[in-house]
C-alpha cells in the first residue's frame, strides 16, 4: 500500500495509518497492548487498542459476546482526548481471552465479507429503480 514512501522510512511502525504519522514522528504506542492486572493465563484481561473507536469497539464487543466461552465482554472509550479503546474480556474455564479476541476478529472479517458478497450480488442483479438527481 505504501511501499515506495521515502518519508516513512525511519518510522518503524507499519501498523499505524499513515495520516497519524504526519502528526507525530515520535514513537507511537503499540496497536494492541494487554493492560496491567491481567490474569497470568489471560483468562481475564483488558486490551488497549490504539487509534480505534466505537466503529470497531462495538462490533467487536458484540462478536465476543456471541462466543459461549466468554463470560463477560465490554468496551469503553476512556476519554475523548485519548485516541484509544479498552476491551475487557473474561473467560469461562480459564480459557485464553487472547484466543477469543483473535477468533472474534476472524469472525467479524467473515461477517463483513458475507455482507460484501450479498451487496455485490444484488448490485449486479440490477433489480432496483434508477433515477437522475440534479446537483
Amino acid at each position, binding site marked *: 500500500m505504501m511501499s515506495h514512501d521515502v518519508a516513512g522510512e525511519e518510522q518503524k511502525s507499519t*501498523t499505524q495509518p499513515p495520516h497519524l504519522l504526519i502528526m507525530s514522528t515520535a514513537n507511537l504506542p503499540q496497536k494492541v497492548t494487554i493492560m496491567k492486572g491481567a490474569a497470568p493465563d489471560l483468562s481475564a484481561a483488558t486490551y488497549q487498542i490504539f487509534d480505534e*473507536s466505537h466503529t470497531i469497539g462495538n462490533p467487536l464487543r*458484540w462478536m465476543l459476546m456471541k462466543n459461549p466461552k466468554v463470560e463477560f465482554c465490554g468496551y469503553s472509550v476512556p476519554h475523548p482526548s485519548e485516541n484509544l479503546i479498552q476491551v475487557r474480556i473474561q473467560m469461562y474455564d480459564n480459557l485464553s481471552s487472547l484466543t477469543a479476541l483473535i477468533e472474534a476478529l476472524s469472525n467479524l472479517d467473515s461477517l463483513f465479507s458475507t455482507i460484501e458478497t450479498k451487496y455485490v450480488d444484488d448490485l449486479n442483479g440490477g433489480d432496483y429503480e434508477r433515477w437522475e438527481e440534479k446537483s
Partner: protein
Amino acid sequence: MSIDPRRLVGIKAERVTDVSSRDFPGYYPDEDNSWNLDAFKENLTVKIYRVSNRSIDFDLVGVDASIANAFRRIMIAEVPTVTIESVYVYNNTSVVVDEVLSQRIGLIPLNVDPAMMEMRVGDEATDRNTLVFTLTLGCTRRKDAPKDSTDPAQLYENHELLSRHLLWEPAGEQEAVFAAKPPGPLNPDIVLAKLRPGQQIEMTLHAIKGVGKDHAKFSPVATASYRLLPHINIKKTIPPHLAEKFQNCFSPGVIRVDPRTKAVSVDEQGVRNDTVSREVLRHPEFEGSVELGRVRDHFLFNIESESAYPPQRLLLEAISVMRDKIANIKRAAEALLDRPADEDVTMG
C-alpha cells in the same frame, strides 16, 4: 406480514421498549445463539431499492445495530477522499479575507478517484500524493455595458470567482494517469467569492488524500444514515366511520382503506415511509387497537455521495476500510501470542 416479536422494538405512547439486542448465548435457555456463519448468511438480506447518480437507498436486514452503525461511521469519517489542503496566496484583493476564502476552497468536492492517489506521509509532496491547482482571476469593467444596467454580469467581466476557475497543473506522471478524467471540481458553479473591478486573486492550491475524522471536508458523503423499519400491528378492527381518521394518524400511503367496506390495512411498501409519529396513540377511540414498533435488525440506509465515488461504491469502500482495520488489529493481537506474559503482569 407476521414478524417474530423478538425482533421488534416497542413504541409506546411515552416510552420505547426492548431496545437492546438479546441474541447472545445464555440469554434464552435451550437456545444456542452463538456465532454461526452459515446461519448468518441464511438470515442476511441486502436489497438495493433506488440508485441515482448521487444517492442510494438500500436495506440491510439481519445484522446487529453495531454493524450497521460501523458502516455509517466509516462512511462519514474513514473513507478517504481527495481535497484541497494547502492554499498559497500570492494576491487576494477581494473582500473575502485569505483564511475565509481558503476555508471555502477546501470544501470544494473534487472529481478525483481517491484510489488513484496515495496518502501523503510526512511533508514530502510527490506526483503520487499531491495535485496542484492554480486559481487566478481579475475583475474588470465592461466597456460595452448598457447605460442603466445594475446587473454585475452585464457591468463587469469575471465578477464571480467560481470553482470552474480551478486550473489543474499536472506534474510528473499525472498527465498520463489522469488523462481520462482531468482533475477538477465536481460542480463547476460553486461561488467562492464575488469580485468588483480592480480586485484580483492569485493562488496555488495543493490537494491531498485524507479522511473525514481529520477534517469534515474529506468526508465523501453528504449524509449517510439509517433508520429501522416501522412496524404497525392492527389488533382490533377499526370501525368504518373511524377509518379515515385512523388513516390520517399515519404518513400518507401507510394505511389503506378499502373504498367499499372501509376496512383498514397496512400497506407493506408504504409502511417504510411512516414517521412513527405515535399520533394514533393519542386518540382514546383507538386505544388497544394498534401496536407500533420498529424491526430491530432491519436497517433502511440512505447514502448521498458528495465526492468522486458513485453512491453504490461507498458501502464497498466502507467494508474494505473495516476489513483493513480488522486485519491490522488481528496482526497486532497475534503478535501478543508469542509473549503472553507481559512484564506488567504481576499476579499471584
